[in-house]
């Protein structure tokens, strides 16, 4: 359970998040939707405890994040950043093993158990065949999946009771992926959802990706929550036009009964007209 209550965040005079409240229960798949600059990434960083909000609290379970050490947060909460670049020549397996950091003592070395966990995470993300490759030689999609494997390795714990669900935060996971990598990522996240009870919180501006994986949507605009609710109730043409200030049409794909976002950019939205 991860709950953010009345979060305010900003630097100096720039306010980024205003009164954001969000609650994620175990197994939920939450999508944070919004245009560029709406504060999605900042919200994820607040949720991960990487920055402390100016006002408001984030609770993991029943404890305020501020009262938890980085190591104990990391045992329950992992983040996959939009892009990862590594300076030195680490192998894929070494990167996956970095997820074991919070579970190891200061001077401990990963044992066979840790290595097995990393390998099974690599298998799950279908990157096991790359395990000896240098991370920096991988494609964007492969890197993404290895970092997800590392995050999964981090969330597996023998010591924490299983009723404590863990949280996986993904920041714009499709931003630099081509279509086939996007489909693979979607498949992977669906597999994860079936195999484990991880809570997923995904920031994205890719509507169809959000439709494909999320069961709950938070619409973030200019740092405030415009609306939130189940994916089906949130995905209306009116909501999306309002959120992105662009001409978007949400339609139902008849054979599959699934919602699809159509970007109708041949027309200019009314509000844009007025601004001009």
């Amino acid at each position, binding site marked *: 359970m991860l709950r953010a209550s009345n979060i305010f965040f900003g630097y100096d005079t720039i306010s980024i998040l205003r009164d954001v409240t969000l609650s994620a229960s175990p197994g939920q798949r939450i999508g944070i939707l919004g245009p560029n600059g709406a504060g999605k990434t900042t919200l994820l*960083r607040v949720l*991960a405890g*990487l920055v402390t909000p100016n006002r408001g609290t984030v609770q993991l379970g029943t404890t305020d994040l501020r009262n938890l*050490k*980085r*190591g104990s*947060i*990391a*045992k329950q*909460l*992992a*983040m996959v*950043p939009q892009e*990862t*670049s*590594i*300076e*030195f*020549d*680490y*192998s894929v*397996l*070494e*990167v996956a*093993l*970095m*997820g074991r*950091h*919070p579970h*190891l003592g*200061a*001077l401990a*070395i*990963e044992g*066979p158990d840790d*290595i097995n966990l990393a390998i099974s995470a690599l298998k799950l993300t279908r990157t096991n065949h790359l*395990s*000896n490759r240098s991370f920096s030689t991988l494609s964007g999609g492969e890197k993404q999946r290895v*970092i997800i494997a*590392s995050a999964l390795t*981090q969330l597996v714990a023998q010591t924490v009771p299983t009723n404590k669900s863990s949280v996986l*935060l993904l920041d714009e996971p499709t931003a630099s992926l081509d279509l086939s990598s996007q489909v693979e990522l979607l498949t992977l996240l669906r597999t994860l959802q079936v195999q484990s009870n991880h809570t997923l919180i995904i920031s994205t501006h890719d509507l169809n990706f959000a439709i494909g994986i999320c069961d709950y949507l938070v619409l973030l605009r200019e740092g405030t929550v415009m609306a939130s609710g189940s994916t089906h109730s949130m995905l209306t043409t009116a909501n999306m036009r309002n959120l992105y200030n662009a001409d978007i049409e949400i339609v139902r794909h008849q054979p599959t009964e699934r919602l699809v976002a159509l970007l109708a950019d041949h027309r200019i939205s009314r509000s844009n007209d007025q601004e001009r």
Partner: protein
Amino acid sequence: MKVQLGTPSEYRKRSRILFMLASTALASCIVAPFIGPTPIQWDTVFDSTRPFNENIDAQIFFIARLPRALAGALVGGALASAGVVLQALLRNPLATPFTLGVSSGASLGALLVIVLGTPIAISALPVVPLASFIGALSAVCIVYGLSRYRRRGLSTTVLLLAGVTLNSLFSAIIMFVQFLADPTQTFQAVRYLMGNLNVSGYSPILWSLPLLIVASCVFAWLPRSLNLLSIGTESAASRGVDVTRTQRMAFLSASLATGAAVSLGGPIGFVGIVVPHMVRLMVGADHRVVLPASAFMGAAFLVICDVAARTLMAPQELPVGVITAMLGGPFFLWMLIRKV
């Protein structure tokens, strides 16, 4: 071909390399004192039947050459490991122990003492090393203070910029002081700036030892966190690393080691960049191997370079910094080209 992690063969390979480098470092410390313009014999040096006062070979070995080899090993090990730590901290493979202004601070400190003389009668202490250590410390404080200004964490960008700027500022002051000084002092100062392991006896080594031990203890705690810092500070934090504390400890311990090394041997360049990269080519990127391996290799490398410095133009002695720069410069260029 890389060896699969976690397999017995991988552990064997890593331990073998560490053992090999440690033995090389040890062997170079023992063999180096036997090489020099005056030949000495192993049998005579360790001949316990002769009293030490009459055993000239033993005197040369223990009084003249062994301290120098030990100083070389300590300085080389300290600079190489400080190089590893700073490259990881700044996420920049071109960083050296001298990037953050430590060496120019130390040089300025030493230079002021050489040129101005000692203000009070403290000549019982090793004045030049002390002054250079104080100079290093001041540089570290300035850079550290700047990098924390207006931020709760540590900004590595500011750290880098402040270090580079301070380096050139101090270099300018060094040139100014040299300009004012008389030729003998300038000559002495230039010699100091080239780096020299010509320590007199064991006391400078004993002085720097506690500092190096403290730095090594911190180094032992750092490697896994340094691995995580290389995937980015936010990713490291979300994997459970206390980033600010790690950065602070890495910066301060590397500076301490550098300060101690510079006060012992002067600003000997290139050890801190060449050795870490040679080690990475051998063992991969994992800092838990790279750090100790660099310390051993740096020790062996500098002791061997110093032998070359003492013998190449014997009886004249080259400053060891000239040798390391002549080897290190081309290597550095090769690395730059390879990166492109």
